């Protein structure tokens, strides 16, 4: 017990491999950033479908949200990695293979687009109709109204909730190690297999993520509060 306790908190081994591990953590951030862009783009598209006048579009938007909000991240990433290239390959009649990084970005991006769509929609529906009417009466085009009146307010309103979703997305990036994207967890697993000492490595990984995520969420929350306060003032 005390021997293993000592080993678990002797993070020397974790420190020895710090270069590889930092590179791994950087991969987590790359996947996160790319998936966030995909999720925000598709999420905005789906939210616009959900508030469309035509029922068909609304129905499609709802379908998108229900599928991706209820899909576990792991199965989506695996599905995008192993099935989507085959299906697309049949369509264009060539052999297609995704690199694991691309699969993870698409998979995680799709799952989180479902969550972001709902956040965007709530934000859009919260805009008083008078703002849009005022824009129209000034002769603005529908597109100008969306980009200059609706979207800026939506973004501010959805900040607090999207911070939570960004944090979940960052946590979900650890899953990409399972399709061999060389992130921090992947490196830890590989080094564990060489060194046969899981205790310090897994403990170190858990502590690293804990510190990074706690710090990121506190900073993001403070920033989003300040930005909101500044703009509403």
């Amino acid at each position, binding site marked *: 017990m005390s021997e293993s306790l000592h080993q678990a908190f002797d993070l020397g081994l974790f420190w020895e491999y710090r270069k590889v591990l930092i590179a791994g953590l950087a991969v987590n951030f790359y996947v996160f950033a790319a998936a966030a862009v995909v999720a925000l783009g598709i999420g905005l598209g789906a939210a616009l479908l959900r508030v469309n006048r035509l029922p068909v579009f609304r129905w499609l938007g709802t379908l998108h949200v229900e599928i991706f909000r209820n899909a576990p991240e792991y199965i989506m990433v695996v*599905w995008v990695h192993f099935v989507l290239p085959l299906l697309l390959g049949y369509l264009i009649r060539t052999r297609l293979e995704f690199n694991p990084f691309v699969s993870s970005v698409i998979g995680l991006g799709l799952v989180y687009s479902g969550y972001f769509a709902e956040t965007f929609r709530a934000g859009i529906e919260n805009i008083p109709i008078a703002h849009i009417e005022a824009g129209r009466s000034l002769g603005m085009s529908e597109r100008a109204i969306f980009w200059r009146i609706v979207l800026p307010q939506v973004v501010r309103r959805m900040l607090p909730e999207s911070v939570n979703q960004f944090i979940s997305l960052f946590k979900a990036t650890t899953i990409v190690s399972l399709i061999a994207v060389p992130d921090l967890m992947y490196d830890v697993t590989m080094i564990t297999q060489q060194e046969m000492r899981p205790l310090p490595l897994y*403990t170190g990984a858990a502590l690293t993520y804990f510190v990074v995520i706690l710090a990121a969420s506190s900073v993001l929350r403070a920033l989003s509060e300040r930005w909101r306060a500044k703009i509403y003032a």
Partner: protein
Amino acid sequence: MGNWKHLVWDQREVLLSGIAVTAQVCAIAFAVAVVVGLLLCLLRMYARPLRPIVIVVIEFFRATPILVQLLWVAYVWPALFGWPNTFFAAAWLALAVQSSGYLAETFRGAIEAIPKGQREAAYSAGMSPVQVFWRIVLPQAALSASPSIVNQFTVIVKSSTLVSVITVPDLMYQSQKIVNIWYEPIEILTATAALYIVLVFAVSAAGKHVSDVLRRRYAITAA
């Protein structure tokens, strides 16, 4: 269509056994998470000397990714605490650990939202602190937190796909095994994804229904 029959329908027994394992893991994890979450919440709120430690524990549970926790519980805890000794136990324990952190904060929010006057009324009616908690505070808190509790259960179901990584034979594990036998991923992975989506959808719809019915029946703290 032949592939669908051969790869999915003919494998239904294996897939069903996987679903059964998924259901077991999730049910145990959820039950444990509710109890531990409530315990953590009470310690945080009422055990003043322990508060800093409990806050760190809750934040640690909440801020570490589930995959990391799963591997940590599965490979580090046995050496550290001599338990869990099977991967099945490690699976539900890891899922419970993470959810208990979230539930502790959910419970705390719900308990803090109960008007102070209710507690004072109960005390002035001569109830003991334990009675006040069990009869006045907890039922209302549980009711107002029920949507978040249900949501946490769907999170457990989604995260449970990862227990296949430590070779617990859940639905994900069985489906990947079938892929590795036949090298035909399209049908079986699509079917598995659809199964999970339907499963999570059904769980959240059922949970929402139950919590709506409860809230309407007892009609307190509708906010």
